């Protein structure tokens, strides 16, 4: 469902839905939790065999899988916990300080 929430801070009470129910399923994707991150998991494609352990262990569903193959990290939402890098048996994910990779 499309639910426009621009300027919600200034809405009168009557414009909010009853019970303050969220009306747009999954719209939390608009929240960029990626800016919490202090360390970034960097994926080295050559080392990866798409075992997908990083996918099933990611708390934020931030591992992108395309057609059953590992395809990278969603940095808009990855909080940088490092679980993927810890659990990767082939060291195909490694943590790098965010300030070293950010412009």
């Amino acid at each position: 469902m499309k639910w426009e929430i621009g300027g919600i801070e200034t809405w009168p009470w009557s414009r909010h839905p009853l019970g303050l129910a969220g009306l747009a399923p999954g719209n939390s994707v608009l929240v960029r939790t990626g800016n919490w991150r202090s360390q970034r998991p960097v994926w080295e494609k050559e080392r990866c065999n798409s075992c997908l352990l990083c996918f099933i262990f990611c708390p934020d569903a931030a591992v992108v899988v395309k057609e059953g193959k590992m395809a990278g990290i969603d940095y808009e939402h990855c909080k940088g916990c490092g679980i993927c890098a810890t659990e990767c048996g082939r060291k195909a994910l490694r943590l790098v300080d965010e300030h070293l990779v950010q412009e």
Partner: protein
Amino acid sequence: MATLEELSTRRELLAQGHRLCAGCGAPIAVRQVLLALPPEAHAVVCCPTGCLEVSTTIYPYTSWRCSYIHNAFENAAATLSGVQAMYTALKRKGKINEDFRFVAFGGDGGTYDIGFQSLSGAMERGHRLIYVCYDNEAYMNTGIQRSGATPRGAWTTTSPVGHVRTGKHEGRKDLTAIMAEHHVVYAAQAAISHWRDTVAKAEKAWEYAKEGPVFLNILAPCHRGWRFPMEKTIEIARLAVRTRFWPLYEVEKGEWRLTVNVANPLPVAEWLKMQGRFAHLFRGKGNEEVLAAIQADVDRQWSELMARCRSAVPA
């Protein structure tokens, strides 16, 4: 059982952008359960108050891509019972044709303690729903207070450590066994580290939820409350299994079965040592009794479980 490749093609019902801590165990448990939902079925989720609820539904955002209802801390199971009863009635009248399945996700506070009466009631009344407890062993949402799931010897803000006290004095409730004794169709204990086991149990759970009540208890470590580095969430859960602190088993229509055997267990101290909430037990002398009591808890729990499991499946 679905492979990881298959699971990766399914829709994530818990969307990105929820505000649970980096490295939190709860969303890992939720994802493993929801990815196991048969793709043709719809899920209806209910949460009691807890970390998961407050972090996934911060107005005007919601992380749920399915029907979702929150009521209060103590009544998730009762609320979902009502929703499920309504669905059954509408289905009988032919007003709903789709296949809906019902699941509640509660923390240990909302499950072992505050929501216990409504959970017990829902299980006893035979509602066709799954209740999943993501067990992080304390009230983490409000800042680490002891719960019925907190193990002996653990520091929390309400079981402090000092000259007199050495953390929590009491052992933990065995809620999975209590739920199994409600004679539910399916009850199981799982851990996020053993994803294959968890997904297999979740798949059974979604099927059995068409017949009657199902209870899943999934260990989901909390690095803020247990005091360990956030990247070790899975490692800690795995060690809880390998020390026999958290046995993985299922009770299917009254038959108890071990699903992951732990033939050569590590001493439970190996697991305790990794966590700051037990650090006081390893500082100086005088805590040997507590350590021995924790090991005794683990050994007793394991032998009781073995007595109940007629067919132990080695792994």
